[in-house]
């Protein structure tokens, strides 16, 4: 284009410009589509063409299998990458501003590092560490730097001195009653926790934002009915529902995630509704409307981004609830015992608490730290993303 650079607003011939450009995709959406496609194909292949017991990657000679939950997890990771991480890179000024606000909160920065470890451990760990094997001979090995009475483990892997068995770096956090390495199990548990965190957040955010904005923009009796439905969702006894489904279909991790997130979006929807109502009163929404933008464009371009940044906090604070709930259910023995979650590990070690406390303590502390980290992070995000909200509450 010859005129480029000297382009002026009063020289645009609008009759030349067609309206076809409305459907052009952003680089983020193109990337999302391109990366989702192979995952979706793999999922279809896994679902239709491989046997129930065959590993997904058998066609390239790998003995690795992906469950439905794993596919969802990959999908949510892609979502997070293209619509959360990449935009931060694309808008460096905004990112720097958020980071400046965020880093004032020291505990939150530490929390973020911890969650980063859990995240990377959860993604990479299972790829580089082989799954914990049952080895009854080396059951009850103590963690490194500690010792137990020689008679507790069947055979002591480390040194035996003065009738006490000392822990080794082979099993830094000791082993369970079945001889499984506790550290490996915690790393595998990180995957489960991250799956819970990402998938529930995606489901809750999707339903909550859609439902909330629809309700706010419909108004009238539609709004009324939708909000009463939210009341029902909020007051629904999810636990009983879960037990019922468990009884009828049997429950795995996927079932847990689906059931609990399908009944957890009520609060989010309510929050989104009130937030969208207040945002739609702002003058920039009016400005957007008189620019000729359709209601969909206004919602997609202004309402959702503004709502989303303020519900990130709420969603972050929702995750610890799920993690705790999963642990509680596992501890009660309700749920899939084949899922290597932290809760299952705690539950497995509770009968040995008196002489092998590390089996409970190690995952317990990790769980505690993770939940604490999410809470700190949520608080800091509230301050960083919503400085007004902080000012209002003070």
């Amino acid at each position, binding site marked *: 284009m010859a005129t480029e*650079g000297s382009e*002026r607003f009063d020289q*645009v011939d609008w009759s030349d410009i067609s309206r076809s450009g409305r459907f052009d995709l952003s680089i983020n959406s193109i990337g999302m589509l391109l990366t989702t496609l192979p995952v979706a194909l793999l999922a279809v292949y896994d679902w239709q063409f491989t046997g129930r017991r065959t590993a997904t990657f058998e066609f390239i000679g790998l003995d690795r299998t992906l469950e439905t939950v794993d596919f969802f997890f990959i999908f949510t990771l892609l979502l997070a990458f293209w619509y959360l991480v990449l935009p931060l890179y694309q808008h460096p000024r905004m990112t720097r501003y958020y980071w400046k606000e965020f880093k004032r909160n020291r505990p939150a920065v530490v929390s973020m590092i911890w969650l980063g470890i859990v995240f990377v451990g959860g993604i990479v760990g299972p790829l580089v560490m082989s799954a914990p094997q049952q080895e009854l001979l080396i059951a009850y090995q103590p963690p490194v730097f500690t010792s137990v009475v020689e008679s507790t483990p069947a055979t002591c892997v480390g040194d035996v001195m003065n009738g006490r068995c000392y822990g080794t770096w082979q099993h830094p956090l000791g082993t369970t009653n079945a001889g499984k390495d506790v550290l490996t199990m915690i790393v595998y548990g990180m995957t489960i926790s991250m799956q819970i965190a990402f998938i529930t957040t995606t489901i809750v955010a999707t339903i909550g934002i859609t439902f909330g904005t629809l309700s706010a923009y419909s108004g009238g009796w539609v709004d009324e009915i939708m909000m009463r439905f939210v009341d029902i969702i909020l007051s629904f006894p999810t636990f009983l529902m879960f037990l019922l489904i468990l009884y009828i279909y049997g429950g795995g991790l996927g079932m847990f995630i689906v059931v609990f997130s399908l009944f957890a979006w009520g609060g989010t929807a309510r929050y989104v509704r009130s937030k969208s109502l207040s945002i739609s009163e702002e003058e920039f929404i009016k400005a957007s409307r008189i620019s000729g*933008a359709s209601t969909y464009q206004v919602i997609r371009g202004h309402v959702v981004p503004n709502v989303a940044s303020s519900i990130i906090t709420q969603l972050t604070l929702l995750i610890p609830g799920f993690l705790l709930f999963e642990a509680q259910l596992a501890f009660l023995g309700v749920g899939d015992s084949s899922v290597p979650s932290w809760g299952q590990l705690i539950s497995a070690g509770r009968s040995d608490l008196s002489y092998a406390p590390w089996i409970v303590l190690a995952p317990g502390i990790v769980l505690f730290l993770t939940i604490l980290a999410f809470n700190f992070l949520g608080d800091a995000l509230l301050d960083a993303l919503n400085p007004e909200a902080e000012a209002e509450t003070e």
Partner: protein
Amino acid sequence: MTEPLLSVRDLKKHYPIRKGLFNRQVGAARAVDGISFDIAQGEALGLVGESGCGKSTAASSVIRLEEPTSGEVIFNGGGRESATRNPDGTHPNDVTKFDDEELMQFRRGAQMIFQDPSSSFDPRMSVGNGVGELLKVHGMSDRHRRRAIVEDLLERVGLSASDFDRYPHEFSGGQKQRIALARALVLNPDLIIADEPVSALDVSIQAEILSLINDLQDEFGLSLLFISHDMSVIRQICDRVAVMYLGEIVEIGPVEEIFTNPQHPYTEALLSSIPTPDPRASIGGIELKGTVPSPTNPPSGCRFHTRCHKVIQPDGVDIDQDDWRGVLNFREKVITGEIDIEQVRENVAAGGSGPSDSEIRAEIRREFDISETVDDADLEETLSEAMNLLLGDNAEMAGEFLSDEITTPCAETEPETTVHTPDHESACLRHEGQAAAEPNPADD
């Protein structure tokens, strides 16, 4: 006569008030109640009035941010010039009847600047994208082209091209209003509606923005509908001014004429509120007493009569104008039952001795600025009679008595529009009998 760019005819915007189980409409807030004005190509029309008089509602109805209740908004810009009325009386350029396609085209012809610079930009969008959004909405999908146009425009309004990637929180109020101006300009409109664009800014910044608006208006031949409550701002920027009171335009005319020769009492009151640089001049000449009436239930007759300092006395009465105003205020308060005689009694008693009736009468007169005796025997008698009734705890009867006995023509007759000079009109009963306005003068 050349065709006006925008011509508003009898525009009304009523907000229904609903109550009860079935949302029955029990009334309406008549925010804008039949206003008419024209804006010529390249002209700046000021719309002035106090808060709540419907200025902003008028603006958002004209630009169809809200659907007007009735009336016509005829926009002859954006390639729709010299259209004639359809045989059925509707106008092809009536904005209120535009379909989606036409409305989209109208958006390119008319844009708006808002009052509050802090909320008029999306905090999550860089200002460049915020301005460029309009181009995108109207189909310009070439990102580089959008950027080039917006950067050029940002420089034109006194910012730099590198501000494209900045976010609203990085700008001051004045800078944001410059960006708002860029946003309003980016589609190259013929008309810009500015809703109190400088009222949130410091005086020094105000002057900068106003002169920027003036320059841009001259350069691009823009028409401007400039809304403000500040007469001095209007004087700086507008060619003509329309004064609004409670949903109606009470006076419209060229700025210089309105300022030197205001015809409507309300305009006089507004003008007297402009501070003068002379320290010896008394501050504010005319003080409007009483509260602004609610648009839900506007006063009968002339809407300004409840506060007008020049309210007309009926035939045969000729007393001091301040007394007359006081008497009417007194009447109004008694009718609405807002005078608590016990309260007055206590207040007087607090001054010392037990209050006598005459002391209370004097107190009430002082309260309403009525002299010891008014110059009209009948009126004086009516007043004493009403006060007797009040003192005898017959407030309701006093109210009925007063509403029967004291009347003003202003409350009974709706004023017609009077033409003073061809371009200067006002609606006040005091001008009754002068040349009346021909019906819809610009409707040819």
